[in-house]
């Protein structure tokens, strides 16, 4: 399988990349682990690719101004290995180490996964539960998009034409914050048929996000309310599971029918709530 031909430009800085995003069907290339399959299947036939994988300012992880900042072109491998992530956002390293396989984790980038917004991606639920902001830059400068406003539909995001994701910014969790992520993996690819991420703050405020359940990953307000500030005993967890994934349109495909997915959502919510109880 061979993609259609495209022009090619490699950027060394973010501003060069933005300048290269000229009119026409221009696509950014990061790890290529979603884009190349799409090009080969000719689902995408861009006129030009702009390679951002070598841009140093898009790589790496740091903590500044009370936020953990992950560069968009940071690979899963580098996220899994990172000490800040291991100690403060352990559900990120734990989940990233279960994405696909080692070859995928050595090349896939967090920015690529978020921009692609696959309905079964793992990162989408994680950044939602972590209250992250997606930092993007375009010709008019930088802006921050809350994760809760970023995923707008099937493979769709709030990213505008000419913008690139530069970083993911996560508020540094307070001491005593607990996190967990569990998924029912598609057995071959390990994509989440259903995945549930939870971040519970010391005061009992609880963020709950699902992936794989609907067209895009989402925060489940009803489930969050059912557990907010309450001790996570069996009755509370059961109430949250009853409230979860209600009133959303549930995905249905040959892997899992809608009622099965909805059932899984409740089961996986219970698993993560028990893990942070």
């Amino acid at each position, binding site marked *: *399988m*061979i*993609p*259609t*031909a*495209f*022009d*090619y*430009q*490699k*950027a*060394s800085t973010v501003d*060069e990349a933005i300048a*290269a995003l000229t009119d026409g069907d221009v696509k950014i*290339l990061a790890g*290529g*682990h979603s884009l*190349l*399959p799409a*090009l*080969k299947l000719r689902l995408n036939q861009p*006129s*030009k*690719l702009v*390679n951002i*994988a*070598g841009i140093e300012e898009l790589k790496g992880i740091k903590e500044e101004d009370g936020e953990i900042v992950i560069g968009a072109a940071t690979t899963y*491998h580098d996220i899994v290995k990172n000490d800040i992530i291991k100690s403060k956002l352990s559900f990120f390293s734990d989940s990233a180490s279960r994405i*696909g*396989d*080692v*070859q*995928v984790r*050595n*090349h896939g980038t967090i920015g690529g996964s978020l921009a692609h917004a696959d309905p079964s991606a793992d990162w989408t639920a994680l950044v939602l539960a972590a209250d992250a902001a997606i930092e993007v830059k375009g010709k008019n400068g930088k802006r921050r998009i809350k994760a809760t406003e970023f995923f707008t539909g099937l493979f769709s995001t709030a990213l505008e034409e000419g913008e690139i994701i530069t970083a993911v910014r996560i508020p540094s969790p307070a001491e005593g914050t607990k996190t967990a992520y569990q998924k029912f993996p598609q057995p*071959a*690819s*390990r994509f989440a048929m259903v995945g549930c991420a939870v971040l519970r703050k010391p005061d009992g405020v609880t963020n709950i996000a699902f992936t794989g359940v609907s067209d895009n990953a989402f925060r489940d307000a009803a489930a969050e309310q059912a557990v907010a500030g309450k001790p996570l005993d069996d009755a509370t967890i059961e109430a949250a599971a009853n409230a979860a994934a209600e009133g959303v349109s549930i995905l249905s495909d040959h892997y899992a029918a809608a009622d099965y997915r909805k059932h899984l959502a409740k089961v996986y919510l219970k698993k993560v709530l028990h893990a942070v109880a």
Partner: protein
Amino acid sequence: MSQHTIGNSNYNSQQLYDADETIPVGFTVNGTHHTLQLTAATTLLDALREYMHLTGTKKGCDHGQCGACTVLLNGKRVNACLILAVTKDGADITTIEGIATADMLHPLQAAFIEHDAFQCGYCTPGQICSALGMLQEGRANTAEEIRELMSGNLCRCGAYTNIVDAILQYKNGGGRD
């Protein structure tokens, strides 16, 4: 405009290349430097197989799913089918052809033969490159860990048990266990 020095010294980092233009790219493959002219759409796998005639690396799915195309890129295992060759100018690549010495199999290759760790052999180059990458990562200590960390390499013939045995034997330093 900055110039690459490691790979191909003619490579202009920010230049816009038209779709029908070829791009100069250089890498070291199994210790030998190669300079090629490739269109941007050429994958690293096709560059190895079609342009360098290193056909040991196999094309299974061409979609990142099977691991038959696994090579070591700057020491890390990757799927060559999902990487555009021009993005790896200057890289150091090891393929299955670079693993044995002139007249001696690599001990992991010998262990694969000893354990009958294949049937058709199509997945084997990827399995061996992937296993060497895994052992460099230094994480695989038990059969269970090996199975998990080799999950990117499928074997349609189902030689998995023997593959794990071969890797364990090599890891534990030789003799049949």
